């Protein structure tokens, strides 16, 4: 049997986390097919076919798939599910919304957010905000699995030439309508895939003060993150939130500024390779996970940090 991976895309490009999920899916079974559900998405089909790990692209193209509606995607996936041993997608808001709907209709107990493939039926996944790791074995005949994208490398995107098979659309739901999506465009690297992330917390005290963070981010070509407290307080918009119920990031360098380090925030960043904490409270829990802790007032430390960075001859990009 083969595995079926559901691609996330915007009808023009494959979203990066799909490439991480492809790596995990190919570890489960090398006969990996990708299902692309979209509207006028031929370019996406072509780029998926060039991913060497992909053996076949199933492409459903219909205007009802212009926007991603879980109900419509589910109907399309169910038409093809019987030929596959596993149905897989990334554990971001796309896959979290979609996969349980598919799993329920197949009467499968889904395995969410895996960080390691141990065998085709056994996986490692974090529970309790990453404070415990569970090794779980699925005893369902068919499996629905979502992949924590930051735990797997992104698949190579060139050199492959998989067959693209066009398939028919499924029924459309009458009960859910897409209205709009407010995407904040930014030239900065994406939070989920950035090499460096600098995050601000409640210690920033206002949205305006986040400028101190963005100045350093510009210098380091870093993505900007935030604690839930900072998002709740309205300092910054929700797509920046790092944590148990926000995004999970695993950058080479994570700089936490004015973040106390609640369990829920640590869940989203403690696997980062190098962690820096800047906080004026020396007892803040964030220091327990920091490789380098600086006990200082962020309003003095951040401008100094930028100044010191400016003195360096080179900064890695």
């Amino acid at each position, binding site marked *: 049997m083969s595995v079926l991976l559901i691609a996330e895309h915007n009808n023009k490009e494959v979203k990066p986390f799909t490439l991480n999920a492809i790596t995990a899916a190919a570890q489960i079974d090398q006969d990996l097919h990708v299902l692309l559900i979209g509207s006028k998405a031929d370019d996406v089909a072509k780029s998926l076919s060039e991913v060497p790990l992909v053996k076949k692209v199933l492409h459903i193209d219909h205007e009802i798939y212009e926007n991603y509606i879980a109900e419509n995607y589910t109907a399309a996936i169910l038409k093809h599910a019987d030929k596959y041993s596993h149905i897989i997608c990334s554990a971001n808001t796309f896959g979290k919304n*979609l996969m349980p709907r598919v799993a329920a209709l197949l009467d499968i107990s889904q395995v969410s957010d895996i960080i390691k493939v141990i065998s085709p039926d056994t996986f490692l996944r974090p529970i309790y905000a990453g404070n415990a790791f569970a090794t779980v074995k699925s005893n369902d005949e068919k499996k629905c699995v979502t992949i924590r994208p930051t735990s797997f490398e992104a698949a190579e995107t060139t050199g492959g030439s998989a067959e693209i098979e066009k398939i028919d659309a499924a029924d459309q739901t009458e009960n859910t309508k897409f209205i709009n999506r407010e995407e904040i465009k930014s030239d900065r690297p994406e939070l989920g895939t950035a090499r460096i992330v600098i995050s601000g917390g409640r210690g920033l005290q206002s949205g305006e003060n986040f400028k101190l963070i963005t100045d350093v981010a510009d210098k380091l070509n870093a993505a900007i993150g935030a604690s839930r407290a900072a998002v709740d307080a309205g300092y910054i918009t929700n797509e920046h939130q790092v944590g148990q119920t926000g995004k999970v990031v695993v950058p080479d360098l994570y700089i936490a500024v004015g973040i106390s380090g609640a369990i829920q925030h640590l869940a989203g960043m403690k696997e980062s390779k190098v962690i820096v904490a800047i906080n004026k409270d020396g007892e803040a829990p964030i220091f327990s996970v920091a490789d380098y802790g600086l006990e200082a007032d962020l309003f003095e*430390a951040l401008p100094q940090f930028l100044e010191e960075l400016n003195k360096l001859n080179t900064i890695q990009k």
Partner: protein
Amino acid sequence: MKILVAVKRVIDYNVQIRVKEDGSGVVTDNVKMSTNPPDDNAIEEAVKIKESGKATEIIAVTVGEEKAQETVRKALAVGADRGIHVKVDGTIEPLAVSKILKKIVEKENPDLVFMGKQAIDDDCNQTGQMLAAHLNWPQATFASKIEVNDKSLQVTREVDEGLETIEVNTPAIVTCDLRLNEPRYASLPNIMKAKKKPIEQINASDLGVDTNPRIEHIKIEEPPKRKAGIKVASVEELVQKLKNEAKVI
């Protein structure tokens, strides 16, 4: 309009989790338990809708062991009208919970079902979507804003790229984000009043739902520990360490 809100009892979000030495699970004895945080938002939203005159009844439901009733009692203290406790012992997976909730929905015929988007114990993020699937209802997940219209809801969802707004016809399932609202505290008089509100007890086995786990937990272990870090004395030292020791900038 009738709103059913599903709540789950979990280890309190402030408790430092300890893994059992035999690898069978996490320590729950003498550990503070609470309502799953986004489930509090789900209750709060239902109460606000009722206060605005758009809902007539709120039913809080939980699935779990005897003590899970506490979460229903708490929901009653902040404004739910009556409760249902589906009693089941041992591990129960989201798939089974969603099948049980389907039975409750068929019995109660609510127009809306609210619950938290994710439980902070198993971090599965499945139950609402699964219930929507079983009922063939629309789903609005990760809601940070809900506008109630006559026969539909407009829901703003928190997605990776920002915010997405969809319209779903009722009946519908909404899973709630922590940013949906600010849950209120129960006042003492309301806690006293809640003690008189009815909670119906149903045994899961009487609902004809197979609750046997499909996923085996082979081992629960502590995540790898980070090696202890150091405190630096100055910004200069920090930058030098990042450049020359960690080599990340």
